[in-house]
């Protein structure tokens, strides 16, 4: 078999040699025979004649020889390709319309598929990555769905869960790199020593972290990515053992990762040991994860996930027995869930992506139907040619393969253009903010995409060829040959096929439009949500404190005091403050608070609330609304009175009928000493910490920064455009501490806008798809009706000659268009309701069945298809009797 393929391949690739050799060999034979005949006494001319006759038809023998090599198939195919090419070139209007339709529809699908492929399908870049899982604590009854893992969890689980080959924890962090005055902030990760072995991919040069490097003071070692190594040391081959300055500490480089190392969506370029004190590892800290530390593990080969889950549950149950907090934790519905790492990471965008792909497929279907229509029109106009050729002996196989070659040639061209569009589409998506999606920066154009494009193009070619071939073969030859003489009855079958195409097109476009409408209204509703503050004219920036110099709270408090003082002196600054977590920062950890003297109601589980430390005039700078009492101000930051402010949700939860003012609470989940209680001095509007579409009334507590310190966001309200303040803010920070960079500098409005990217992008894409779908429907309806008019010109002419009015003719066609529209809208309406239900989870404050949208879409569809049908209808009404009758 292999030899034959090679022989065919050689004959095919050295086609010229093959042909020349064959000619030479055959003519050699004839000459030899001629000579023999001459020797036997014939005259040279007679001998030559006899030799040729006895040899047989040279052409057919050559054909047989080619066939013996399997070459005839290629010859045939080549001929059909050339024929199809000529036919397509002869009708540029048709070809360009078809190519554009294919390019746009395939391009849309390929773009979305590129995202699905890169985000959902492609495995994580680690060996046997399907064995990687993540384990997180959840306290659903306390409103905390996800709380990561604690350091204690790690030390308790490490080596104790037989289902796991390896367990590890990590935390995203940042590090300040470089010498004083020229520092840069780098994204980093702190990881446990077994992090790289859990992933199955570690440094190519050097080593990973050791157990003794996980305590404070011994942790000044770093593993860097290939990119950082190249960028910072010009790919120094002797980097191992050298020192770089990290957060002011000399830190030894111990390893360099391979170039393609990439953990989930992390942008980290530096990896440090995750250091902890012995105290951090005690059972008391078991539930203090706060979602900043995450745990991953590698399942043992062949062990199902459920088994790991059982073992984790069993261990948790064992540990809870002698946990003093055990009862409260159990009340909160505590569990540790084991889930696939990849699936978990992309779970949030999975439904959106699948929905968009469904939308793109609907678009492709509409486009295909349109093309089917166009091809049928074309087949109709070439019916006679085909009939003549069939009558002259062209085989059915031949006619079918010719149709197939033509459609496939077109779809392949469309596929190629579609790939080009997808390449642009991928870039457009990243401009629309796809990079902020999980794995979003890894969306690439790869071989699989090209293969899918090829497969899609070929199968589309086949799908398009089927109805045409069927029509060509089924049509009685006699009818086709005569159809020029009178309107053939077989035309009617085609016409009804094409009308059903239009109906399905209208229905599909209706569903797309309705879906886009639902997404658009959801976006509108989420943009209308008040974030709880006035986001205009605010600039924010993040400052993460290094351990060195900021080990205790007083240093941080002193820094913020000085910084706010500095900022307050800047011109155009109206007010400024700091907060430990700015709204919509992407982080939304919750923690417990306990009301003094209040015992939980029966069945009530402890609640997680957003907790903030605020300094300066944070509330004023953010423009929070004050409902009762007063704000915490700069004066409160300086005094050490234990005051706090809560939000409306918090106040309403604990004091639904009275005022929260004057009540006292403790930070944490237990009653404390009277001196540690915070007095509520003000109630502010609720804040949307996790996102504008957050529905849960989680409640928030604001403590003075001195009592709740940590990394800070600086918040500055200015009378200027806030963007212009960026450099000034950096300079002010440098003024106070030259080693501290500010990062994530963004206006509050930008944060609000960015937080909606996950809603905006799908809505925009759906709107784009719908617009294309409308255009395709318009083209489709126009095409079908024009053709119907064209087919019935004679009938129209005769009727007009017999006294029919142009208005009657026009209305007849408009009625036809309306009937098709009505069927399509009815089908589409049903489909739209089903689609709406399927996308319920993606909607925000919009019912899946939205009458306004259905009516609106009906209006738009009606307008588009009627406009598309007006032209052919009027043309029908203007049919000239004389012309028609003369043409007959």
């Amino acid at each position, binding site marked *: 078999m292999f*030899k034959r393929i090679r022989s065919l391949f050689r004959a095919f690739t050295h086609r010229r040699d093959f042909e020349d050799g064959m000619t030479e060999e055959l003519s050699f034979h004839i000459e*030899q025979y001629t000579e023999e005949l001459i020797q036997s006494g014939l005259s040279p001319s007679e001998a030559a004649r006899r030799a040729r006759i006895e040899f047989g038809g*040279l052409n057919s*023998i050559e054909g047989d020889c080619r066939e013996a090599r*399997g070459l005839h198939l290629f010859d045939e195919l080549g001929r059909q390709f050339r024929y199809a090419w000529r036919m397509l070139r002869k009708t540029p209007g048709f070809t360009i319309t078809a190519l554009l339709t294919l390019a746009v529809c395939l391009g849309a699908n390929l773009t979305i598929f590129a995202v699905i492929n890169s985000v959902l399908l492609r495995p994580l870049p680690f060996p046997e990555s399907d064995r990687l899982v993540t384990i997180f604590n959840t306290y659903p009854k306390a409103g905390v769905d996800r709380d990561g893992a604690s350091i204690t969890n790690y030390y308790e689980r490490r080596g104790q869960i037989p289902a796991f080959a390896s367990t590890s924890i990590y935390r995203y962090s940042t590090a300040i790199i470089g010498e004083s005055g020229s520092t840069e902030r780098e994204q980093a990760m702190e990881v446990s020593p077994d992090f790289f072995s859990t992933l199955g991919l570690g440094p190519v040069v050097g080593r990973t972290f050791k157990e003794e490097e996980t305590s404070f003071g011994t942790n000044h070692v770093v593993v860097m990515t290939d990119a950082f190594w190249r960028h910072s040391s010009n790919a120094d081959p002797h980097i191992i053992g050298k020192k770089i300055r990290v957060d002011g500490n000399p830190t030894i480089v111990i390893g360099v990762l391979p170039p393609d190392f990439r953990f989930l969506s992390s942008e980290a370029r530096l990896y440090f040991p995750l250091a902890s004190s012995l105290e951090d590892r005690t059972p008391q800290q078991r539930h203090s994860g706060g979602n900043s530390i995450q745990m991953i593990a590698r399942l043992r080969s062949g062990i199902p996930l459920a088994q790991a889950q059982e073992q984790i549950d069993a261990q948790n149950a064992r540990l809870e027995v002698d946990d003093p907090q055990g009862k409260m934790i159990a009340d909160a519905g505590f569990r540790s869930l084991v889930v696939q790492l990849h699936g978990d990471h992309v779970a949030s965008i999975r439904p959106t992506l699948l929905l968009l792909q469904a939308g793109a497929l609907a678009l492709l279907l509409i486009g295909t139907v349109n093309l089917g229509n166009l091809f049928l029109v074309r087949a109709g106009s070439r019916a006679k040619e085909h009939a003549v050729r069939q009558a002259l002996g062209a085989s059915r196989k031949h006619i079918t393969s010719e149709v197939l070659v033509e459609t496939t040639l077109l779809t392949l061209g469309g596929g190629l253009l579609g790939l080009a569009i997808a390449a642009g589409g991928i870039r457009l998506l990243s401009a629309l903010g796809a990079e902020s999606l999980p794995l979003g920066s890894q969306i690439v154009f790869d071989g699989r995409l090209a293969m899918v494009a090829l497969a899609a193009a070929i199968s589309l070619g086949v799908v398009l060829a089927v109805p045409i071939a069927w029509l060509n073969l089924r049509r009685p030859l006699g009818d086709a040959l005569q159809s020029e003489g009178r309107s053939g009855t077989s035309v009617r079958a085609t016409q009804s096929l094409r009308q059903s195409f239009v109906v399905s097109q209208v229905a599909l476009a209706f569903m797309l439009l309705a879906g886009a409408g639902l997404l658009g209204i959801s976006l509108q509703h989420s943009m209308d949500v008040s974030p709880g503050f006035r986001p205009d004219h605010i600039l924010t920036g993040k400052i993460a404190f290094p351990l060195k110099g900021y080990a205790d709270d007083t240093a941080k408090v002193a820094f913020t005091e000085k910084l706010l003082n500095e900022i307050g002196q800047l011109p155009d600054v109206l007010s400024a403050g700091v907060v430990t977590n700015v709204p919509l920062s992407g982080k939304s950890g919750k923690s417990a608070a306990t009301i003094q003297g209040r015992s939980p109601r029966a069945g009530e589980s402890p609640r997680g609330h957003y907790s903030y430390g605020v300094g300066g005039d944070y509330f004023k700078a953010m423009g929070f609304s004050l409902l009762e009492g007063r704000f915490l101000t700069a004066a409160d930051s300086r005094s050490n009175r234990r005051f706090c402010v809560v939000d409306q949700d918090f106040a309403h939860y604990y004091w639904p009928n009275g005022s929260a003012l004057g009540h006292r609470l403790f930070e944490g989940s237990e009653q404390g000493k009277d001196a540690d209680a915070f007095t509520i001095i003000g109630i502010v509007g609720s804040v949307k910490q996790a996102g504008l579409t957050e529905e849960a009334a989680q409640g928030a507590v604001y403590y003075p920064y001195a009592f709740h310190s940590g990394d800070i966001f600086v918040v500055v309200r200015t009378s200027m455009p806030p963007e212009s303040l960026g450099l000034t803010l950096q300079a002010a920070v440098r003024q106070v501490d030259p080693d501290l960079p500010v990062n994530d500098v963004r206006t509050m409005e930008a944060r609000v806008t960015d937080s909606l990217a996950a809603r905006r992008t799908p809505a925009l894409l759906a709107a784009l798809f719908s617009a294309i779908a409308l255009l395709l429907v318009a083209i489709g309806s126009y095409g079908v009706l024009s053709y119907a008019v064209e087919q019935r010109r004679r009938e129209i002419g005769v009727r007009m000659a017999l006294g029919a009015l142009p208005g009657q003719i026009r209305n007849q066609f408009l009625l036809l268009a309306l009937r098709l529209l009505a069927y399509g809208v009815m089908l589409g309406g049903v489909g739209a309701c089903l689609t709406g239900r399927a996308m319920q989870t993606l909607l925000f404050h919009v019912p899946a069945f939205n009458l306004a949208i259905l009516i609106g879409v009906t209006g738009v569809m009606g307008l588009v298809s009627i406009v598309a049908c007006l032209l052919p209808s009027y043309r029908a009404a203007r049919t000239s009797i004389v012309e028609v009758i003369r043409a007959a």
Partner: protein
Amino acid sequence: MAKPVDLLPGTLDMLILKAVSLRPLHGYAVLQRIRQISGEVFDIPQGSLYPALYRLEHQALIAAEWGQSENNRRAKYYTLTTAGRRRLREETAGWNRLASGIASALNTRPEEV
């Protein structure tokens, strides 16, 4: 000389393999050799030889190489490959069984039944 008979279908390949097995030959010589070794029994249409040669070459039963003919012309010479030799052996055995079977069937006399 008896009237030439038409070849049974499928036997041309066998004859070509046999002819080429004796020594490398070009197409025209294959024809002459078959005529010679078969005692000029068969009438082989000249043109039909070449598709058969190409098919056998395609099946890698014979190999082709350009060389010089007796009168110093460039000609394509065919030789038997190992696979071809095996095929020839099988076909010969098969043919002999067939021929003897048919012969004994045709020679059967009434008293032998």
